């Protein structure tokens, strides 16, 4: 799960970079940057939850 989380982190960052480089309209770029950040948050959540001492794991 940790590896999947890190891969999602990288994927989210790639989405952000692609949005910055390829998209010109401000609204579209903003939406895709925020989408990339959302993917990163999902990835970070997976990485955190993979820690055996995290609360959800204890429960």
């Amino acid at each position: 799960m940790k590896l999947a989380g890190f891969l999602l982190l990288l994927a989210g960052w790639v989405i952000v970079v692609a949005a910055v480089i390829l998209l010109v309209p401000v609204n579209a770029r903003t939406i895709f940057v925020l989408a990339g950040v959302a993917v990163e948050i999902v990835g970070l959540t997976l990485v955190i939850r993979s820690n055996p001492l995290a609360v959800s794991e204890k429960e």
Partner: protein
Amino acid sequence: MLLPITEIVLIIVLILLAPFTIAGLSLINTGLGRSRSAAHSLLSSLCIFAVASGVYVICGFAWQGYIGAPAHTFVAAGRQWNWLGRGPFLLRGLEFNGTAISFAAWLQIFSVGLAALIPLGACLDRWRLSAACASTALLAGWTYPLFAHWVWGGGWLAQLGINASMGHGVIDAGGSGTIHAVGGLTALALAWILGPRSGKYSLEGMPTAIPGHNAVLVLFGCFLSLLGWLGLNSAGAILFTGAAPGRIALISINTTLSAAAAILAAVVITGVRFGRPDVSISANGWVGGLVASSASCAFINPAAAIVIGAVAGALVTYSVEWFELHLGIDDPGGAISVHALGGIWGLLAVAIFASFPVPLLIDIGAGGFKVASDTGQALAQIVAIATLIGFVLPLTYGLNFVLNRIWPQRVVMEGERQGLDLYELGGGAYPDFVTHSEEFGQFR
């Protein structure tokens, strides 16, 4: 470019203050750790700084570069994107005659030392000295210069204003993201890799309090840190964002107010929650305020600095508990809360509070400059934060994960029980005092 003589003198004085950040943080880390590893903690601080400065001079600054210096670029969507410096190793060819780049190299030696020291706060009492040095070499030689080039060296994050009409590009005057978030995220990666100190968590996963051994060291370290931060923020703002030297008064006021508001917030919150203020959390709050002030210090008014500091203090106070209790991350020095979260908040605060009355130093090549607008600044800061979380964190975790396979980073259980002072150094910091009371039977 050659700087005016008055500015040279000013920058020299400011950079000479910067090492106090390292001294302050070293004392804070040592005080928050256990007495049985106190000497090891301070020796590690010195060795980490030594390795960081050496490696950075060898190859780090070559890859970080400076605005307008040679760099590796690629073309995408019809625009040129700068991704890595292309300078000579060992500072060869650098003219030490009052040029801005020479002062930037000098300041960066202290900046990278500070960034490399941050992970020690999360790895206290269990990080081998040799492994700490090896990990520092990776941070100072690659991770830090890479991101610092993107923000301070004219790289693609700094170019967002020119290439993508995102305000002035990423603004980070004193290094909230470049120094502190990079260091704090490395601390997070290492805390995961090393695991918690033995005895920190019960079999049911409940944390046990392991308080710091010397509150005086911690609090005195806070005073020294303020001195250093005044120099670091001011020099960084002048050299990396083109702030006018006259802004030093504003920068110093903002830095001080942010730290003051942060510690008062931490004192009040812990006082209300626990009945008495907590020394270690309050000290971490102070440093959190300093960290959060760094990015925006030259471009906000004092009232905003108070708000930024207060938010940082509250953030540090609650996140320290959250990391320990809910995420199962043992961070004795509060490095992750203070530097990673504080640094990210500092970058975000630029988007919320900063205003730019004069054009900043934005080099668009061929000797030209562009006057940037403030529109899109928030998105630029968000892209920087996304890069820290989505790229820097996986990068630093991956590097240290591989390093751990080659060179184990955590000391063996016996070493942790004895204390790193005895196990790795052969002598304790406090030989006249009993630090292992559980080993002694009844006294005659």
